[in-house]
């Protein structure tokens, strides 16, 4: 089975990549070992204090040894202790990760109907004024950085219209509905950022399908246009768009870092950036590794889907 073989090699390669990425992350953050002591103890620390700190934390040992220990901890789900709060990193990261997951899920649920409707409209009225308008809009949309988009949405809907909160204190939400209302602006920001790509991709795919023989046949048979699109064309155009969606999923985890920061959302992106400035190396490592791991898995997912949906690979023995 060639499919199984290809899939197996992809999964294996993803694991190797993850391993290499963990090494890059650890090296990049701990390459200045003396620095960590100075960072934590502040500028008035004496040399003896720094040496004692390094000895206590085990920072005086070679980096490869420390990497090995860190990695074996990570594999068991232990990322060490935060340098700032003394809590285990897991306790710090997990609640934030849950928040980020909720936000990403929310954005994703908004993104799907949004892209399908606008992408279909653009394709059905191709080369017309609706299409030109939407193409221009998506071109502008993909040119506006997420943090600018988020800030503008916060300005319009948060400051001028006062309809949504600008700072998303999700932990203060008393009900699920309130949480949804609070998260609306960051979720919409992320959904727009993803949708602009998907709309363009779906439009191109759908146009190709709409111009195929079987769709023309359906139109000539007198099937109403909305049925042609919904029942005949869309299902076939969605398959290639799935790949974009998986890639968007990968994008989401990166884009979430900036958008969370815009709305002071207590998620993993805000934690990552804040920990960078607090010089909390173990938390930065954990966040960077988790974000990268999700990214790698999402890309693997896109890859696997492309392979599974490729009939040439499916039928080969």
């Amino acid at each position: 089975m060639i499919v199984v073989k290809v899939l197996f090699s992809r999964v294996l390669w993803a694991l190797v990549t993850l391993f290499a990425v963990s090494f890059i992350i650890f090296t990049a953050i701990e390459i200045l070992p003396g620095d960590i002591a100075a960072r934590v103890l502040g500028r008035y620390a004496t040399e003896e204090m720094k040496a004692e700190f390094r000895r206590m934390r085990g920072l005086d040992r070679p980096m490869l040894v420390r990497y090995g220990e860190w990695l074996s901890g990570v594999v068991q789900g232990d990322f060490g202790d935060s340098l700032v709060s003394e809590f285990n990193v897991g306790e710090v990261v997990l609640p934030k990760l849950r928040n980020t997951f909720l936000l990403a899920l929310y954005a994703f649920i908004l993104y799907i109907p949004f892209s399908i409707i606008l992408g279909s409209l653009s394709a059905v009225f191709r080369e017309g004024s609706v299409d030109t308008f939407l193409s221009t809009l998506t071109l502008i949309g993909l040119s506006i950085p997420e943090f600018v988009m988020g800030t503008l949405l916060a300005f319009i809907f948060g400051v001028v219209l006062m309809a949504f909160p600008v700072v998303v204190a999700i932990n203060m939400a008393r009900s699920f509905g309130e949480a949804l209302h609070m998260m609306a602006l960051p979720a919409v920001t992320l959904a727009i950022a993803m949708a602009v790509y998907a709309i363009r991709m779906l439009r191109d795919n759908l146009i190709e399908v709409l111009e195929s023989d079987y769709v023309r046949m359906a139109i000539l048979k007198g099937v109403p246009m909305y049925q042609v699109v919904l029942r005949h064309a869309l299902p076939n155009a969605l398959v290639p768009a799935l790949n974009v969606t998986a890639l968007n999923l990968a994008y989401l985890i990166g884009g979430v870092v900036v958008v969370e920061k815009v709305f002071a959302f207590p998620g993993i992106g805000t934690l990552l950036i804040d920990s960078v400035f607090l010089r909390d190396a173990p938390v930065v490592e954990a966040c960077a590794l988790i974000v990268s791991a999700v990214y790698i898995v999402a890309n693997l997912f896109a890859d696997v889907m492309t392979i599974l949906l490729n009939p040439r690979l499916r039928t080969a023995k």
Partner: protein
Amino acid sequence: MTDSVITHKPIAVVGLSRGLGRVRRLPWTLVLGSILLTIYLLVAITGPLWAPYRYDRVGTGKPFAAPNTNNLLGTDQMGRDLFSRVVYGAGLELFMALTSTAVAVILGGFLGLLSGFIGGWFDEITMRVFEILISIPVLVLALLVIMAVGLEASGSELLLVGVVALVYLPRTGRMARSVAIDLVTRDYVMVARARGESAWSIVWRELLPNATGVLLVEFGVRAGYAPILIGSLGFLGLGVRPPTPEWGLMISENRANLVAAPWTVLAPALALSGLVISLNMFTDGLARVLGRQVKRV
């Protein structure tokens, strides 16, 4: 031998002049994009000569003054003239975006073409390294480079150029390599090989001229994304330092004043978005002229 040329799939790579000759009417995105970019370039180059104030001059008006005849775009909390700051920022933004993209496309393009041409273990290793670097989200990779250099040492424009170039290099490299893989099967490359030309010479004289179209579009796509990355890093406080008039940094500095003085945020936000829109329009038009699809991944 000759029919391999004829039956080859539609040529993915078209030279710029040939492309321009083919289309009768230029795409409107190319025209508008070129005009806007020219304006940005003119402002970037000549701006410091005619900007009303220096970018760091405080007290050019009352703090948080609304746009008026003295301060065209208003002032920020230190009374600095936002119009002047945005004008000074144009040069910085364009310099960082274009230099970093150029470094990435030249180095990545060259490595990619060479890798695709040589093949074997060199290709294998280069591509694996590229793929590992690509599998780290852009922002996280940029963050890691900045942390490795040290937060204290960060904040220089050159470091930022290096960071953006490093993030893009593997991506352009992988793209150039896929072009090279397609090109090495062509007859003229085989002929050059048969003539006994060196790898360098074939990459330089045969592959590169035929890949310019693709590399140009790649340059446009990356250049369009570079200001977003630079701005995002500035916004997160990982880019250049105040009082540098970097637009992303300006947005982050003034966000707290969004209610009291929205112009302090809107001015750099519009300037930044406008720059990326012009770059993307230009690239979109260029890709159409060259008969290529713009892939943004």
